[in-house]
């Protein structure tokens, strides 16, 4: 089932079903939130394991964000960290000791108190993992050493090295607090949503695995983020998540009044939704932009001139205008313009095919008889695997391949099964080029992406892969370590800027666009909020008369 065929079928189907009657007129100046009602939310994929640090997977995050609370709240507009379950906190100058005062009276939905001991237990697992129960370590917590319960409502965390990103790390979905009974379960049993006991505004009521999940509002909930206008119980009585894999069915169901809110709307379907007065929501994921990265360990792309040539051969504007919409802004740096520490380096990202050709010739790659660049009998042929979670990634890579083709470089775009992709992606010789992106609203996200001990997208020696021969960039790694351990905020943001310059100067990455998460909602759905990286929060959502 190719996307092309699918789209052709969709077009036909849409033509056949034109003139959908108009459901749900715009809510007339409704300002007073209405209580009650159940939101029908269509998800593209079934959730997987709901261990909170695995909340990066969108379907998981969309559920965890309603049923768990976090120590702190990151204001999605200002990106400032505000109180939530923690009333206040202190951090020492070196950012190696954090002390949190816990709000009194908070309970998990099983009745157990959410106190200092419970918080300590959560962070010990997230920070150190649990080998016996196979719980992996959370990506957002660096250098964690231990916790200490000072009194029933005060908890202190110690770090082996400065960890300035930890405060923001307490606000992310992956740091959702769960009850002791949940943490006592082995990892392989955490896929059962009914066993994820949180303290959030909604509680899992029932679940049909792989198909449907019902949440109901928790009546006594009264501990949302302090600075939110809405306090107390959620307005909605419940939320029904229904897994609907087919794009056209999700959109059709929304427009036909069978659903209220849907996730994952492709750019080419946006106009169809907006034409009916429905709303597209496209919150930014505020992290590392959707990019193409190189694995310099592969001799073909080891020369910085070759990488720079391909950077200038890439026309990000054409990609954005051809495949996407205004909700996908063209990248002007390796991180989003709304990200912390962003620096505009668009001047270095100019599309310039003539320069690209000149650079390739300088590097010794001349055009052969078949139009491909050659050097010492080798052709400049590269390979990349498409990434399924990224929007229209295959089409993006194919367009990049076309653009590179104009300067005599061939890029093979492979679909491949997950197994081959996972294995080949560890080998720079097999996969010299790769799509990449990651969302998190803290400068640490850059380290997450590039540092060999984290995601290691450049595949350095001593990182994730034992297939790497020799490539290491000590300068980059030094900057990344400094970024993750510089307690002074201004200095830290300056380092973030330096890294953005350095990565693009070295042409390790070709940033393409700022990736949003695209949702669509009926006009009567009010008050949908998104946390800092685009996961929905339905705490303040209400349904107007319709």
């Amino acid at each position: 089932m190719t996307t092309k065929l699918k789209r052709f079928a969709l077009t036909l189907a849409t033509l056949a079903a034109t003139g959908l009657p108009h459901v749900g007129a715009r809510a007339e100046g409704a300002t007073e939130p209405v209580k009650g009602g159940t939101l029908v939310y269509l998800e593209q994929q079934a959730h997987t394991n709901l261990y909170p640090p695995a909340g990066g997977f969108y379907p998981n995050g969309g559920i965890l964000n309603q049923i768990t609370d976090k120590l702190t709240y990151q204001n999605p507009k200002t990106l400032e960290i505000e109180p939530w379950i923690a009333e206040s906190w202190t951090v020492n100058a070196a950012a190696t000791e954090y002390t949190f005062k816990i709000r009194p009276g908070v309970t998990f939905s099983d009745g157990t108190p959410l106190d200092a001991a419970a918080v300590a237990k959560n962070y010990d697992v997230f920070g150190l993992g649990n080998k016996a129960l196979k719980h992996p370590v959370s990506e957002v917590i660096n250098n964690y050493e231990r916790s200490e319960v000072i009194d029933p409502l005060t908890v202190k965390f110690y770090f082996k090295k400065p960890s300035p990103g930890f405060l923001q790390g307490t606000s992310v979905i992956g740091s959702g607090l769960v009850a002791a009974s949940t943490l006592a379960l082995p990892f392989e049993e955490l896929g059962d949503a009914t066993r994820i006991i949180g303290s959030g505004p909604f509680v899992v009521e029932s679940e049909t695995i792989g198909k449907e999940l019902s949440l109901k509002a928790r009546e006594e909930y009264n501990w949302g983020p302090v600075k939110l206008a809405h306090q107390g119980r959620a307005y909605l009585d419940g939320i029904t998540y229904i897994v609907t894999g087919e794009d056209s069915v999700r959109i059709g169901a929304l427009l036909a009044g069978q659903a209220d809110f849907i996730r994952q709307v492709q750019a080419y379907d946006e106009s169809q939704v907006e034409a009916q007065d429905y709303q597209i929501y496209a919150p930014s994921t505020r992290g590392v932009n959707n990019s193409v990265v190189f694995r310099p360990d592969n001799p073909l792309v080891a020369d910085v001139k070759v990488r720079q040539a391909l950077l200038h051969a890439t026309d990000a504007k054409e990609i954005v205008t051809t495949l996407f919409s205004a909700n996908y802004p063209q990248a002007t740096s390796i991180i989003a313009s709304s990200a912390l520490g962003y620096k505009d380096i668009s001047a270095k990202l100019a599309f310039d095919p003539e320069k690209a050709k000149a650079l390739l010739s300088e590097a010794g790659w001349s055009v052969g008889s078949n139009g491909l660049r050659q050097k010492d009998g080798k052709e400049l042929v590269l390979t990349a695997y498409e990434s399924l979670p990224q929007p229209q990634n295959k089409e993006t890579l194919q367009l990049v391949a076309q653009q590179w083709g104009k300067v005599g470089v061939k890029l093979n775009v492979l679909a491949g099964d997950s197994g081959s992709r996972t294995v080949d992606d560890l080998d720079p010789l097999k996969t010299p080029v790769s799509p990449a992106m990651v969302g998190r609203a803290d400068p640490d996200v850059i380290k997450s992406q590039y540092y060999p001990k984290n995601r290691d997208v450049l595949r350095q020696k001593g990182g994730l892969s034992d297939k790497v021969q020799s490539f290491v960039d000590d300068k980059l790694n030094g900057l990344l370590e400094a970024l993750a351990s510089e307690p002074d905020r201004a200095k830290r943001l300056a380092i973030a800027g330096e890294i953005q310059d350095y990565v693009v100067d070295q042409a390790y990455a070709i940033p393409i666009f700022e990736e949003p998460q695209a949702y669509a909602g009926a006009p009567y759905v009010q008050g949908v909020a998104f946390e800092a990286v685009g996961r929905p929060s339905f705490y303040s959502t209400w349904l107007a008369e319709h």
Partner: protein
Amino acid sequence: MSAYLLNRVGQALFVLWAAFTISFVLLQAMPGDAILIKFQNPDLGLTAQQVAEIRSSYAADSPVLVQYVQTIGKFLTGNFGYSVQAGVPVSTLLAAHLPATLKLATLGFLLASVLAVVIAFLSSLTPFTWLRGALQSVPSLFISIPTFWLGIMLIQIFSFRLKLVPVINPGPWQELILPVVTLAVPISAPLAQVLVRTIDEVMTRPFVGVARAKGANRHWILWRHVAKNALLPTLTIAGVLFGELIAGAVVTETVFGLNGIGGLTERAVGSQDAAVLQAIVVLSALAFVIINLAVDLLYPVLDPRLRTKVGVAA
């Protein structure tokens, strides 16, 4: 008869074992495995060392033979293990997904049979040659309609436009109407094709000529003489169609968001969720064996000439 049955049961057990072993070998031969796919996922951002620790805690790197013996031992005691990807026991997954597929497959097959019989009988009874030609080309049309497209069209027209059946939150039987039609169309094509060909072939046999000479009309011949004879090849095809049914179910379940084994299989293949796949393979093999055994046992009932072959048991 009992010796025959014992023989068949022995064969069935062999098929089950072979299916289990072949799927095990294939999964081992494929690059990567479920643990790698799950934990090497950049979303988790685990270090190489952490991934290695997880692998050893799952015993993913122990010798293949040891893994094989352990898995088969667990299977024999009815323990299908856990799904690495979904984080729930495989038995829970199967229990959640099996009912939808059983309903879909059974009803889809029944409707396909009705469609096939209607097409075949109408085409051989109709006095108009143009209609006969049209009806005989229906199977080729049916088999070439892409299942997913048909599904999407049905949803767009009957659910979104005419609002006859909801696709979201439908009733237990409502949710099956459109998927059953979607699945029945491609399945009915080979059935109808075989039925049409067999009817044509049987019509040329001498006994039909005899019946005609006795003054029987076309209807009488078709119902009294030809139908029974045409059933055998059709029944054989029906047994073989089981695989087709499962494949069609994958697409249909995906389009309609039905919670069935087809969709589960597709996801499990994608993430190489070995425990889930092995259970599904064994289950499918079991179903296949049972269906074909039923078909074999029906032959003598339908065709007296085959009864002697079976009834020699002492």
